[in-house]
């Protein structure tokens, strides 16, 4: 059975008019196609969000700079945060989940293919709506343009009185619509994982990627919805004269904060848990050992999911809650670090005693380990409320969360790209370009985000379009900006690699990494129906059992 004969008609087949191909992609309900659409969509917005970050960094490169006006700067950090969270991180992670979960559990598609498409297009619409604000937001008196209220949109700054025009409405509605798309995708993932596993794959035999996406999707159901509810309330305030967050009518500004962070904190775990999944699939293969402590990895993730719903007010330590509330959120925020730290030890235990191959996916995984460790430790510092009274709202926090999001999430994503690109396209990404991308990015990342902690410790607050000289922040900011440019170059190398390898990369074959989960048993790219016949599995590593029939995992589980 040659891979080409089984391949679904794709863009490489000659002679099909491009409109037909486009129509096929726009109307697809195939989980693999939708996964690719999510990922491409996210990559485009990654570049746009990166441009916004570059503008921010150029403006902050020296004190009293006038590269952009304060109004433009405030729009830039609002759009950068909103774009990166809702239109890069969420789509790319759901894209990978969409592509991989059915293949890994031995299913032909997701439980609800049309819901899958609907959810994607809702997210896509949200992104377009947000960016339309640049064009359409200009109302009377120029009041209205891209939103400039920050990605967290605290009230009462978002009230009609302080945010006239429509810019805040673009933020609210775009994120609301995208949120509904995310909820739809989560429902689909849960139904797929619970209802469509192949025979023999009971829950204790699922790949960790399936388990962690299951937990993540459960969190989405109860974490994204508080934000949707709060945004509906905000729209009621702005359009129907409601008073949910109207402090002049007795409303509470901190109510928005509570609702937002009840969403906001679990959201960051929603983003990192799929990255834990990537680590848990990739590190074992390149250490040539199974994941160390599979049951605990599942248990720790479930623990994280529950505990993370109780930590939200550590984003609000400075608003003047009582000492009892502050103590409560301190302890929960520290406790959530325990299962998270355990996972680092489990990956370490996986590598220990193995035979580690330093291919590009593994390089990014190792980078993740170091950086996530540091990010977790700065998180512990922030969890201590009094320490947070100094660190909060400063560049220390910005450094911390970029350490998690760029040093953690983005590194894991790069690993995932290099690992699964061969499966998705049938071609290997260039190892030499990959290594160049890795080292450039590591240098740029550390130059920017290690140094960024220091202005925070020296009193530099967030969200400021300029700063005073003589506070000790000047040189640091310059170094940070230079590092940002280096990261930008690295990302361009990556995009170049993606594009060039599509045509010139080595043919990948079914299983270029000698891996053990079901997706590597089909051709690269997989046929439209995934599996010729639905497989039956007897262990967590079905392909290990096939490759080592004298010593299958099923004897040990």
């Amino acid at each position: 059975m040659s891979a080409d004969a089984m391949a679904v008609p794709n863009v490489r087949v000659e002679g099909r008019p491009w409109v037909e191909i486009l129509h096929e992609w726009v109307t697809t309900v195939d989980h693999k196609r939708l996964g690719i659409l999510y990922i491409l969509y996210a990559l485009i917005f990654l570049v746009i969000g990166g441009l916004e970050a570059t503008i921010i960094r150029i403006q902050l490169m020296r004190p009293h700079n006038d590269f952009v006006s304060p109004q433009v700067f405030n729009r830039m950090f609002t759009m950068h945060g909103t774009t990166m969270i809702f239109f890069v991180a969420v789509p790319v992670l759901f894209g990978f989940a969409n592509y991989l979960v059915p293949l890994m559990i031995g299913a032909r598609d997701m439980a609800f293919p049309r819901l899958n498409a609907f959810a994607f297009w809702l997210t896509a619409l949200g992104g377009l709506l947000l960016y339309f604000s640049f064009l359409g937001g200009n109302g009377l008196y120029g009041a209205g343009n891209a939103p400039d209220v920050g990605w967290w949109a605290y009230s009462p700054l978002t009230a009609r009185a302080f945010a006239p025009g429509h810019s805040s409405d673009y933020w609210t509605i775009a994120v609301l619509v995208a949120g509904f798309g995310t909820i739809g995708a989560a429902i689909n993932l849960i139904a797929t994982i619970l209802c469509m596993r192949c025979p023999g794959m009971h829950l204790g035999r699922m790949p960790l990627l399936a388990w962690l996406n299951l937990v993540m999707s459960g969190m989405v159901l109860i974490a994204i919805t508080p934000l949707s509810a709060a945004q509906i309330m905000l729209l009621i305030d702005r359009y129907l004269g409601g008073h949910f967050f109207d402090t002049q009518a007795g409303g509470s500004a901190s109510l928005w904060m509570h609702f937002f962070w009840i969403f906001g904190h679990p959201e960051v775990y929603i983003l990192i848990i799929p990255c834990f999944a990537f680590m848990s699939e990739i590190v074992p293969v390149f250490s040539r050992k199974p994941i160390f402590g599979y049951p605990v990895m599942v248990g720790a993730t479930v623990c994280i999911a529950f505990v993370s719903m109780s930590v939200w007010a550590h984003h609000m330590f400075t608003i003047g809650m009582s000492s009892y509330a502050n103590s409560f959120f301190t302890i929960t925020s520290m406790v959530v670090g325990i299962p998270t730290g355990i996972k680092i030890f489990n990956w370490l235990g996986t590598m220990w005693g193995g035979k580690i191959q330093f291919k590009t996916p593994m390089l990014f995984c190792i980078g993740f380990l170091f950086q996530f460790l540091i990010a977790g430790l700065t998180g512990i510092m922030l969890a201590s409320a009094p320490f947070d009274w100094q660190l909060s709202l400063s560049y220390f926090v910005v450094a911390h969360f970029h350490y998690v999001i760029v040093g953690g999430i983005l590194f894991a994503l790069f690993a995932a790209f290099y690992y699964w690109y061969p499966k998705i396209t049938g071609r290997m990404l260039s190892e030499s370009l990959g290594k160049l991308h890795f080292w450039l990015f590591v240098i740029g990342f550390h130059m920017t985000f290690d140094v960024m902690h220091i202005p925070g410790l020296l009193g530099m607050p967030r969200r400021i379009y300029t700063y005073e000289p003589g506070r000790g922040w000047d040189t640091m900011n310059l170094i940070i900006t230079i590092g940002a440019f280096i990261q930008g170059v690295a990302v361009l190398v990556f995009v170049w690699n993606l594009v060039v390898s599509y045509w010139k990369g080595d043919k990948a074959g079914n299983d270029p990494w000698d891996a053990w989960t079901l997706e590597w048993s089909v051709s690269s790219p997989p046929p439209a129906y995934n599996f010729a016949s639905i497989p039956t599995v007897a262990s967590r590593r079905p392909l290990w059992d096939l490759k080592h029939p004298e010593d299958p995992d099923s004897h040990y589980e």
Partner: protein
Amino acid sequence: MAETKKISNGDPMQMQCTEHANKMSLLQMVMVVFSSAATAVAAPAPPMSPTNIFAPVSTPAKSIFDLSLFVLAITAVIFAVVFTLLIYSIVKFRATSGDAGREPPQVYGSNQIELAWTVVPVLVVVVLFLATARVIHAVQDAPKPATAVEVTAIGHQFWWEFRYPKLGIVTANELHIPVSDPARPTPTFLKLLSADTDHSFWVPQLAGKTDLIPNRVNEMWMDPNRTGVFLGQCAQYCGTQHAKMLLRVSVDSRDDFDAWVRAQQQPAAQDETVTAGRRIFETTACINCHMISGTAADGRFGPDLTHLMSRQTIASGAAENTTENLRLWVQNPDAIKPGSLMPAMKLNDADLDALVRYLGTLR
């Protein structure tokens, strides 16, 4: 189930020993490096920075500083241990060219190891939490002594209003408080309110930050142990000019503070030579936003100007308080602080000069 190991290439089961000797000396080295770094950062400001959180001059900031050193020490140890193990594993367990086709022992887990590395973090968290809770209570629940100076701070877009209710003083942007002698403490207790959106009062050397939230009353305190000028700024995004809502706290000796209070309690200076400017002030829209005691101006939207010239800066620290800047500010505020809520007053040059001369007498 978690303990079973698998042999796939005939090698005997190996228990990997950690190399204690190497780890300990590395740990010691890291501690030395870390503490010298901490000392460097903790050097008193200047020359490093006037807003250095590691250079406290007041009890709340000092409590936070002491706690932060404890937290940093613990996290440094954790980092050193895990970092060393990571480096060790990627060096020691590299695949070599002779390994092709042979898989290492397939280890699925170990109950004892996993228990150990759960228990230790739990203990660390308990210790950290207890240390933290102590400081939370010490700072937040500190009683207010009778000798405290009481200030009400009201946040505006984009300036600070300071009222001393017991002393009958209203000023803006620059706070004067007395130094506090530990023997006879005279701390300053601030009540924090907001007139519009959220703000945050942050002067790192004096205290951690506390937010100013509309429809809510927050409290904070500080007891600086030396005189000087301490800088800070608004830390909660409040709109276009959040970046230039700067803070200047002048900690005065007891005598200087009393003298300042007395000067602030006087009504506005009545200088006969500038009545023309004063008339311009009283007959234009200035009086709608600003207050000058003893005149018709009683607006509360903008800063109180009664003792404008007692301040070093204008526009909440955005510019030095000089005649040229004052003139520029009144004529075109956007040139100094684009997006501030002060409108350009559109006066002709003669009126502008007279007005600025008048303002210059408000000491």
